[in-house]
């Protein structure tokens, strides 16, 4: 009964979404306040209905209702409760449900908190959000209905892919989706602004918090996915330039550009048409990511099932959303009034450079990701484009980006003095040189030259950002107490920028360290044997069997020592899940926060007397995720800035008093 209720709620949500995408739009065009007023209750009703549907699906998973085919395919009665709940989105249908939950939540948030938005803009934004909702609700109901029953009901389910039964991956999709879908807000605002024919600083101030929120959660989502790949796949890698990773990385790059160009619109009323275009492209890339991942044309853990109808449906959705909005853009963008002027060397100029480089980077990732698909579609052979391609194209673009990232905040708006900015960066330059010297000394010239470039960039980003902050609070130039007061009174967005930029430096250090100086040993080890990696000796003490809730595991016990001192005892596992007949590798990691010692237990070999063991030493690797979390924190701090409080910004020059509904 409850699944049917969920199904019914979902159908109702579709009808509400249809109303929501039409009526307010007509109301805004004709100035009919009552029709515009439909937007708010519709958006809220849609959220509630989708929540009912999602709740019904979750209930079916939690109580293991095996008469629902989605539960049979992805759950098992013995599965731990955490994965029963997270398993709801650990499959195609459920993950699309999560997508619409996020989408409607964002729509309802505008409806509830966007009190100070001009009524026409608000009505239009919610209507566009409703259109996206129509598309995805139709998609679920037509191609991916999670509420289909199986009769007769089987006694037990097929269990969730064991690779997904992991805390890191349990929370990866919600963050990632919040990011993807969050960009739909920027998209809706952009389309609404195009319909209105007006973009001004107030508009940018409304768009920025949504973009910030989306960017922050997307950062967290990507970082969680990368962390999962690092410890769960047992190879110790953190990024493979896999198309699935690129699918989430492209919206991140474009979203980063959007975040920065919106600043120029807000502060200087310039770059308006470009920002609108970026908002459209960022969400289009999110949709494309969904298409790549969900259509099954890529081989990955995300391609749950190959059903051509789904791929075609998402492709059509992508075509309508991108094509339609770009058409509107080409019609309306030329009528938008251009704003403030600026010299190339200025804060605006640096943000333009940031945007150019980020777009270039996005384009190279885009080409590398889609080129093999195009060749395949045109039947020109099968190729793959791997990490060497992306390293060769992405890194040369990233280097000037990081250098400019530090200099930009030192430049004044409108017109700036580059030499002046550079002289104020001397302390950062000294710190960078010292870091490179230390790195060269420690590694004794080992590793590629590019590694030292990476260290330099990391240090430059970190110390340069701190130097900028010191400059703002006039550290050491006024008494410390005054500096403290200045720091406390700085806008939160300034804090946010410093935090995000500095942690970006930390992340770069982590990426560089592990890529350039990792050590790897693969050996067949018998209990009692010892192997050495990067100065750590790791002895294989024993192996035993452990019984988990829905798996059995071979559990190895390894002792890590360095110079005779006991460091840690590690227990990597090799789990086998009888229901899915799959084995997974649970690596054991000892971290010192400066480096990781990583042990993964492989197959038994030599008639079961020995095991293949992978041992790694990854210098600085934890910094990648510390850096990513710091960047996310920077975004969130910036989000708490007073002027972004949802609903706070008001248009300064309202041309006409807005119509009030007669109540």
């Amino acid at each position: 009964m409850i699944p049917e209720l969920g199904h019914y709620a979902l159908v109702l949500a579709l009808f509400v979404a249809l109303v929501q995408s039409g009526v307010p739009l007509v109301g805004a065009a004709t100035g009919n306040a009552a029709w515009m007023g439909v937007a708010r209750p519709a958006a809220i009703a849609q959220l509630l209905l989708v929540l009912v549907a999602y709740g019904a699906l979750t209930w079916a998973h939690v109580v293991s209702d095996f008469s629902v085919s989605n539960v049979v395919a992805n759950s098992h009665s013995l599965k731990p409760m955490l994965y029963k709940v997270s398993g709801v989105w650990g499959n195609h249908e459920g993950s699309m449900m999560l997508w619409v939950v996020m989408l409607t939540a964002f729509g309802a948030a505008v409806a509830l908190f966007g009190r100070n938005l001009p009524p026409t803009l608000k009505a239009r934004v919610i209507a566009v959000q409703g259109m996206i909702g129509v598309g995805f609700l139709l998609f679920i109901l037509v191609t991916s209905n999670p509420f289909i029953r199986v009769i007769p009901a089987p006694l037990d389910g097929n269990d969730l892919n064991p690779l997904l039964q992991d805390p890191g991956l349990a929370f990866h999709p919600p963050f990632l989706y919040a990011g993807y879908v969050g960009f739909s807000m920027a998209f809706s605002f952009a389309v609404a602004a195009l319909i209105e024919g007006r973009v001004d600083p107030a508009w940018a101030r409304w768009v920025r918090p949504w973009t910030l929120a989306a960017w922050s959660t997307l950062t967290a989502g990507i970082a969680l996915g990368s962390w999962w790949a690092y410890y769960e796949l047992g190879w110790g890698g953190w990024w493979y330039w896999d198309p699935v990773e690129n699918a989430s990385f492209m919206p991140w790059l474009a979203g980063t550009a959007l975040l920065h160009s919106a600043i120029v619109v807000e502060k200087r009323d310039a770059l308006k048409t470009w920002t609108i275009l970026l908002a459209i492209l960022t969400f289009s890339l999110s949709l494309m990511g969904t298409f790549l991942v969900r259509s099954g044309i890529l081989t990955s853990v995300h391609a749950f099932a190959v059903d051509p109808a789904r791929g075609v449906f998402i492709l059509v959705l992508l075509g309508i959303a991108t094509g339609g909005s770009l058409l509107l853009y080409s019609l309306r963008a030329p009528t938008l009034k251009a704003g403030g002027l600026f010299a190339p060397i200025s804060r605006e100029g640096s943000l333009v450079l940031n945007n150019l480089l980020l777009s270039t980077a996005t384009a190279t990732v885009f080409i590398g990701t889609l080129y093999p698909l195009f060749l395949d579609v045109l039947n020109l052979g099968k190729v793959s484009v791997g990490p060497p391609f992306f390293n060769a194209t992405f890194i040369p673009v990233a280097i000037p980006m990081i250098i400019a990232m530090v200099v930009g905040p030192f430049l004044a708006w409108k017109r700036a003095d580059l030499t002046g900015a550079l002289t104020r960066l001397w302390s950062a330059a000294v710190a960078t040189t010292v870091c490179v010297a230390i790195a060269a000394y420690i590694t004794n010239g080992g590793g590629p030259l590019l590694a030292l470039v990476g260290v330099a960039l990391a240090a430059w980003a970190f110390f340069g950002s701190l130097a900028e902050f010191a400059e703002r609070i006039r550290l050491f130039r006024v008494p410390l107490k005054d500096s403290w007061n200045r720091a406390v009174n700085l806008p939160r967005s300034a804090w946010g920028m410093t935090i995000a930029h500095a942690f970006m430096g930390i992340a770069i250090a982590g990426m560089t360290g592990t890529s350039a100086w990792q050590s790897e040993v693969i050996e067949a080890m018998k209990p009692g044997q010892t192997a050495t990696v990067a100065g750590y000796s790791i002895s294989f003490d024993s192996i035993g069997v452990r019984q988990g809730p829905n798996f059995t595991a071979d559990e190895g016990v390894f002792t890590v020592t360095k110079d005779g001192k006991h460091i840690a005892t590690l227990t990597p596992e090799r789990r086998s899940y009888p229901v899915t007949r799959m084995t997974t590798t649970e690596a054991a990691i000892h971290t010192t926060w400066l480096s990781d010692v990583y042990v993964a237990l492989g197959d038994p070999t030599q008639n079961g007397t020995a095991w293949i063991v992978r041992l790694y030493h990854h210098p600085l690797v934890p910094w990648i995720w510390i850096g990513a979390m710091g960047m996310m924190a920077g975004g969130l701090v910036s989000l708490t800035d007073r002027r972004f409080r949802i609903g706070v910004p008001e248009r300064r020059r309202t041309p006409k008093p807005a119509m009030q509904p007669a109540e």
Partner: protein
Amino acid sequence: MTRKKRRLYMLGLALLGLGTATALTLTAFEDNIVFFFSPTQLQTQDVGDRNFRLGGLVEEGSVKKLPDGVTTEFRVTDTVNTVAVTYRGQLPDLFREGQGVVTEGRMAGGVFQAREVLAKHDENYMPPEVADALKEAEHFKATTQPLKTETVKKE
């Protein structure tokens, strides 16, 4: 600065960026594209010592561990032709005889030395390249050996 001049600067910068990106992409493509071949396609292909991907099914009964304990020998088949493969390292969790596999590496003395064996994450899932290669091989078989009864199990 006039609006026109600013636009010119921006356009120049944008073109520079685009040019750099194109140049980078083209040079990187030349060196770094990895082709995919099935064992049958490999018969007619001169690969030299280029890096490429080989895919098909792991032949039943072909997987052998060498005495060093970490090197594995197996054969990849598309049901018409087979290629011997060696790989040093830990195989992915879902590597199994009779299952689809994609490996990356190069030929050395008639043996494919895999640098990487790509993991499949779901046992019901067949990499699309492998599925196509098998279909093609099946077609090849059907047209060249029409009298032989079916030996390939259809999906």
